[in-house]
């Protein structure tokens, strides 16, 4: 019964898709608002990666919201999986004795971990020049930590430090927005000098925000993994 109703619903939606997609020609030039960004993006924001300038400047408010959603998810996950301290100790001891990673994994990840962190940092610092940015770099940093979690089942990041980093980098983002309000009357304005495009120190607030996002996303995703594993103290 449930299957039949679901399939009827799906057929209706599929019909809707067929009609609507046929109205949107694939591969045709239908740029409207985006033309403005492409033409003036470099001059107005100093970032040669137009996607970055859209993400952080023209639509920076969305990005603030998106960082907030990830923050909420990390918080919510911590709240849902929160275990009272006493219970936690008992569970920990039982689980820890069973697991020990192989020597190759441990040595390999010790070597790889700093490289992965460096790569992630490179990705988010160069967000305005090359493909990539805070989210991608943050995810790479988190996967570096994931590797460490696999190699060293007993270790965990310091939850206090990572919470502080999350909070401070979130505040940096909001604070830069508020500074823009102070300096030029608009929230999240690019109020710093734009510099010469295609150099590292260019495009005003964009690299600063991307560094903050990179750290925040990296530590939030690590915190999510940590909470799911139920390991931190």
């Amino acid at each position, binding site marked *: 019964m*449930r*299957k039949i109703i*679901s*399939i009827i*619903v*799906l057929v209706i*939606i*599929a019909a809707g*898709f*067929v009609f609507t*997609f046929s109205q*949107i*020609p*694939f*591969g*045709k*030039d*239908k*740029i409207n*608002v*985006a033309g403005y*960004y*492409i*033409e003036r*993006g*470099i001059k107005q924001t100093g970032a*040669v*990666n*137009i*996607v970055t300038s*859209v*993400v952080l400047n023209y*639509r920076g408010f*969305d*990005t603030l*919201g*998106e*960082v907030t*959603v*990830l923050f*909420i*998810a*990390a918080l*919510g*996950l911590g709240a*849902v*999986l929160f275990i009272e301290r006493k219970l936690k100790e008992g569970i920990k001891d039982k689980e820890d004795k069973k697991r020990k990673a192989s020597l190759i994994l441990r040595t390999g990840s010790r070597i790889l971990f700093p490289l992965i962190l460096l790569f992630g940092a490179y990705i988010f610092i160069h967000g305005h*020049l*090359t*493909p990539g*940015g805070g*989210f991608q770099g943050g995810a790479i940093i988190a996967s570096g930590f994931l590797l460490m979690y696999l190699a060293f089942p007993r270790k965990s990041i310091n939850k206090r430090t990572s919470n502080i980093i999350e909070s401070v980098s979130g505040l940096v983002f909001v604070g830069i927005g508020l500074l823009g309000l102070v300096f030029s009357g608009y929230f999240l304005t690019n109020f710093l000098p734009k510099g010469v*495009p*295609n150099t590292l120190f260019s495009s005003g607030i964009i690299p600063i925000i991307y560094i903050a996002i990179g750290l925040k*996303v990296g530590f939030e*995703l690590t915190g*999510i993994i940590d*909470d*799911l594993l139920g390991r931190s103290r």
Partner: protein
Amino acid sequence: MSVIYNSMYYIASGGLILIGLYIVLVKTNLIKIVIGLNFIDTGINILLICIGYIRGKTAPIFSDPRIKSTSVVDPVPQALVLTAIVIGVAVLALALSIVIKVYEHNKTLNVTKIKGLKW
């Protein structure tokens, strides 16, 4: 041929969305349902990127000075998809944590056996 070319990405995105919806509506395992939600997200992302694609144009990154402003694809959908991907992974992580909590209380992932989840 051009019909196939023009519609294949739409088929990919629509197909993924429909398969995801099918999994969510029909399957009874909670983790499967979350996988279905993940497929819906991926499908929508492909749809958005398709909408922004313009044939024969390159990515909107002017690191090479030879790239002209008339020869790049629409950057806005890419920015939107970046947002959507991160939102998707956030919802997914929260969903899995709630799945773990439901499992702790019921010792099953089967929706039909959990009283509060029947529909």
